[in-house]
């Protein structure tokens, strides 16, 4: 007989009520072994509150969180690695000492040398941890999260505030951790990050999950069109007079269509230069806009 393994993490009808506001409003999902699960949404959607309840650092108002089929307990704290969005560390300690401190809190440990190498902290290992750049700090926090060689890793907005290069380096790091077979829960408001790293995403808005599934499947389900992007100045005359619906985003306009040839013909017939035209597939940003009617980064 086949006994199904319980999911690594399972969330059932989770609610967090703050004074007058429901930060998390009945959220349920589960994460399988080895999966990278992305919790997406704009700032204030309830991602961090959800994750903190899953980490056991914020008590839920109602609902439950299960780790391998059991409520969170000593086993979870031994086996989980957590990177908080913002964390103060003990002052006056170097990077190496900070890592040594955290590894000592666990029975299962990763050698400090290995953590330093994995997270590319060699250059700063003897530096006071208050004197790190944003990217170095995020790598240190990740190294701390890996100190117990965790079975499940929580990353809460790990790349917020990083420059693009540091962000890409961080993604490479997370991909190599994923390749080791660890279960990862990632929250982010960068849809690109989720698309790049996650096997499954759940999109949150106003405390609820509004869509869940593998990113490519979600896009297929919701869209059968592509987006044509043009600089706004290339459209002659008024936007509202144009015979096709145009979406203005900053200094660009977007045309959504399943009939690319037809759209191109209309553009040509109106004398729109196509030299700077870009055609892109639909992405998770579009999906969020489609589902909520609002842009993500507002």
């Amino acid at each position, binding site marked *: 007989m086949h006994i199904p393994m319980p999911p690594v993490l399972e969330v059932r009808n989770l609610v967090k009520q703050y004074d007058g506001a429901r930060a998390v409003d009945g959220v349920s999902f589960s994460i399988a072994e080895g999966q990278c699960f992305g919790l997406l949404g704009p700032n204030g959607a309830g991602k961090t509150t959800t994750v903190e309840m899953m980490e*056991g*650092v914020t008590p839920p108002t109602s609902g439950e969180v299960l780790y391998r089929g059991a409520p969170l307990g000593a086993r979870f704290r031994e086996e989980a690695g*957590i990177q908080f969005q913002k*964390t*103060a*560390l003990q002052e*006056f300690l170097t990077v190496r000492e900070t890592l040594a*401190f955290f590894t000592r809190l*666990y029975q299962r440990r990763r050698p400090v040398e290995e953590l330093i190498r994995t997270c590319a902290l060699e250059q700063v290992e003897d530096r006071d941890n208050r004197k790190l750049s944003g990217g170095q700090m995020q790598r240190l926090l990740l190294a701390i999260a890996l100190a117990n060689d965790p079975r499940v890793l929580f990353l809460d907005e790990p790349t917020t505030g990083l420059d693009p290069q540091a962000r890409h380096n961080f993604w490479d790091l997370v991909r190599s951790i994923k390749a080791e077979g660890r279960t990862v829960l990632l929250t982010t408001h960068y849809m690109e990050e989720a698309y790049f790293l996650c096997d499954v995403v759940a999109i949150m808005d106003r405390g609820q999950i509004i869509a869940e599934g593998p990113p490519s499947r979600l896009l297929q389900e919701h869209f059968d069109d592509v987006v044509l992007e043009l600089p706004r100045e290339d459209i002659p005359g008024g936007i509202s007079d144009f015979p096709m619906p145009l979406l203005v985003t900053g200094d660009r306009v977007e045309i959504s269509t399943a009939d690319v040839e037809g759209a191109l013909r209309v553009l040509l017939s109106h004398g729109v230069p196509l030299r700077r035209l870009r055609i892109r597939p639909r992405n998770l940003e579009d999906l969020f806009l489609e589902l909520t009617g609002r842009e993500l980064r507002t």
Partner: protein
Amino acid sequence: MNFGRLFAVWHARNLEFLRDRSTLVFNFLFPLALVIAFAVIFGGQPQALFKVDVVAPPGIVLDGALHPFLATRHVDFVRIEPGALMETIRKVERHQVDLLIDLRAAPRYWINEDSPKGYLAEKLLLESASGQATREPVSGAAVRYVDWLLPGVLGMNMMFSCLFGVGYVVVRYRKSGFLRRLSATPVTAFEFGAAQVLSRLLLTVSVTSLLYGALALFVPFRNEGSVLLLLLIAVAGALAMISFGFMMAARFASEELANGAINLTSWPMMLLSGVWFSLEGAPGWLQAAAKVLPLTQMLEAARAVMLDGAGLAELLPQLGWLAAMTLMFLGIAAAGFRWRAD
């Protein structure tokens, strides 16, 4: 309870403290400067009056009729109860009283042969009357104010170090989110608390011991008792005060609030525990209230050792009280401990 985790938290906190130079320097320099200043100001200054304690038959006024010596001007005659005789003899030994005379039967007086004022007071006594008086010489070095003050200043420094060192640090950890980070690890509240208490205990007792040694070089002071006993008192007192600080910090998430609450408790302790002056003349209820405070108990014990050479058996009430307070404070702290700021 996992000692590995306790050790990790303890070790990290020790490193943090040792590297925070400003705090470290403040912990040494502040009391050192105070005691040296007081030694310079008060060291060996003579008092203006002779002080003579008198035991007299009940109901009889202290005047020249009882004994011609009592008619001497510029001498402060103080009647004491017969029951206080032994205690007053000790005061003669410490130069706190220049002469003690018992007039209940044939005059009998106690005099410290090392005391210049005692010598003069005795001259006055012998010249005032022709009759015989039995001489009871005692000896002992004078207790200067600095001898009395030194345990007080060391104790006060320990109190501030214990209350703020743990209280403020724990609140800072909570506010910054470091405690929340720790709550996601296997560390328990008890392990965390014990590590903080032990770290501060080690640091406070080490600083106080070094200070004691340094003071012994700069300002020769009196210690009639065992240094090991003093160490035991310091450990017991520090544990009680650190636990108190930890209890104060068990829930607060604002440094300002913690600062206010700790100030609110440390200032009365500084004034009521007899750091600067004895409460002997204060109303009874105030003395009773002061007795409850851990600093009072610690200073009483330390002065009993340093000034009177008290032994362990005589200190058991104070040590027991300090231990009981430690357990009570830690129990309350552990029950109400919060990891999160909100």
